[in-house]
């Protein structure tokens, strides 16, 4: 092959390699969220109530205790799991039990979820039980919301549910 035509061929083959790269690094666009949709995120980081109450340590027999020594108090460490519920217009979007972290279930419970929801007016209900000793919701937020398209509404928890 003549030198000039070889270089021309090389130019063509380089183009064949780099043009798809130039195209692929920009195109085609991907639709992540359909028009008319919005996002609702919920992120809760909260430590449930301790399960049980403090009590005295009765493990050592009375005779072994030195005089004037009172029995030590023992407190349980295990925390209640969080029972969470998110309803939009009466429909359950999310219902789950979030276990506490830590080997002894004594840490914080943490969760996050993202939902795609239609923009517009909605009725939002968030409920949580963080105390295994009690029935039903210990925390609740019920509110009407209005979402613009592509708006991100975030529900978090800090001494009560908050919407941002």
């Amino acid at each position, binding site marked *: 092959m003549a030198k000039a035509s070889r270089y021309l061929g090389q130019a063509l083959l380089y183009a064949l390699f*780099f043009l798809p*790269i130039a195209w692929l*690094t920009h195109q085609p666009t*991907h*639709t992540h969220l359909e028009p008319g949709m*919005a996002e609702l995120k919920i992120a809760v980081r909260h430590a449930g109530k301790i399960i049980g109450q403090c009590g005295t340590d009765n493990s050592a027999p009375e005779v072994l205790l030195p005089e004037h020594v009172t029995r030590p108090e023992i407190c349980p460490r295990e925390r209640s799991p969080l029972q969470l519920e998110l309803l939009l217009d009466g429909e359950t979007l999310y219902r789950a039990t979030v276990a506490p972290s830590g080997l002894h279930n004594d840490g914080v419970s943490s969760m*996050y979820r993202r939902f795609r929801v239609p923009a517009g007016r909605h009725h939002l209900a968030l409920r949580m039980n963080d105390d295994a000793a009690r029935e039903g919701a210990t925390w609740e937020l019920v509110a009407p919301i209005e979402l613009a398209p592509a708006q991100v509404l975030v529900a978090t928890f800090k001494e009560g549910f908050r919407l941002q």
Partner: protein
Amino acid sequence: MKALLKKGFHQADRLFSNVFTPQWNPLYQLGALSFFYFWIVAITGVYLFIFFETSIHGAYASIERITHEQWFVGGVMRSFHRYASAAMGISVTLHLLREYAMDRYSGPRWFSWVTGIPLLWLLFAAAIGGYWLVWDQQAQYIAILTAEFLDWLPIMVDPMASNFLNESTLSNRLFSLLVFLHIGIPLALLLGMFIHIKRISAARTNPAKGLAAGTLLAMLAVSLWKPALSQAPANLDRAVTEVGLDWVFLNTYPLIDSWGPGQTWALLVGLSCLLTIVPWLPSRRPEQTPIAVVDPENCNGCGWCLADCPYEAVTMKEHDFKSGHQQSVVDPDLCLSCGICAGACPSSSPFRHVDELTTGISIPGFHIKELLSLTENKLAVLATGAPRIMLYGCDHGSVVEPMASDSVAAISMPCSALVPPAFVDYVLRKNLADGVVISGCCEGDCHYRLGNSWLEQRFSQERMPILRTRVPRERVRLRWLGEQGTAQLREEIDAFQRDLTAETVVTLQEAPNG
């Protein structure tokens, strides 16, 4: 599928070798090209890092400044950084497909194959981290999806995604972590790349100069024509709707979007596991398992086999019984039984005065003694009419055995570099044949990496053992046409025979005058 892939590569090889010459053919140096792209990304990355601001608001703005206020340097550097990464993604993928199609992954090659797989993960992770730093719409999209993807693994107590709830939860510290990762992951990749080629001697990590220059020019042209730009800045208070993606590296994100993290993890981990076990699947090519054997009696410790082994399978140790001498040792885990060592051994000479030819190192499946007897027996039965040709070929290149005729003796072996130069000398000197042809894989694409280079160098006396000066070079042809060039080889042998006939006639005509 493998056969189809191989056919596709063979056709592309032919085109690329014609246009680029075999020395510059990019398909023969995809691993080296990947290294080259890596270095471009690394150098341009250092430049970008100097001007990059590690903060939520600084990140986007600083990259905009690099792109627009100094586009002739910064803009081009940024484009090179992006396009060289993408080019590396493509060249690595082609490299993987090629090694698979050409059956270069089983046996001791499992090491290169298996160590290649984490490189894919690291390469993708590095690229994703890079796009993240730009902190535009694409970055916002991948930040949230990556966090959700990683959160699926039960590792962290606090979900990573809760860092990206909205603008108020974003922290500068996270950006520092990202920058750290975007430097750390490529360094891990580089380390992985060196581990990947650890068992390969004289690994080709630099592409041919002409190819490197051409690639740079092409990349410059693309960078000027379509510079890398950011999308609109990220804003976590508004969800990303339509997003432009780099489909080379971010192709799994739409999958996470529609399947969710669990299934995407299953797919990626499943694919990686499947890829990992490929070297042990039944569809692999059975390699010659018996490894090279050293015969201490005939090994003088010259080290030529060590210099020529393409897989670092040969080392030297103190000689078993000749004190003060060394002797070769073969590591069975590394030996591919190509026989290049047997061709390198000075003892593999049929001129030696021994009853039965033995040598210092050889492969059990194709001992040098066997090569000699095959050569002598096959040549002995050729008719004397047409010029007699000894055709040596390899099992991975042009298919030579069907070319045997009453004037052509053909022997195929694992690698043509198994033929010691002394054999060519012997065959011609003893007038067993009128010409010798050695064929093999395509130039630059030897199945055992270095066979044809070593043979060329031995014949041009640049490498031991040399083809002696007394051997008439016009009676010897080295042809690297590969499997796809089988028909062409046949034609060239006919032409060689015609040349040899003409030469004989000329010699006869010249004789009375001379």
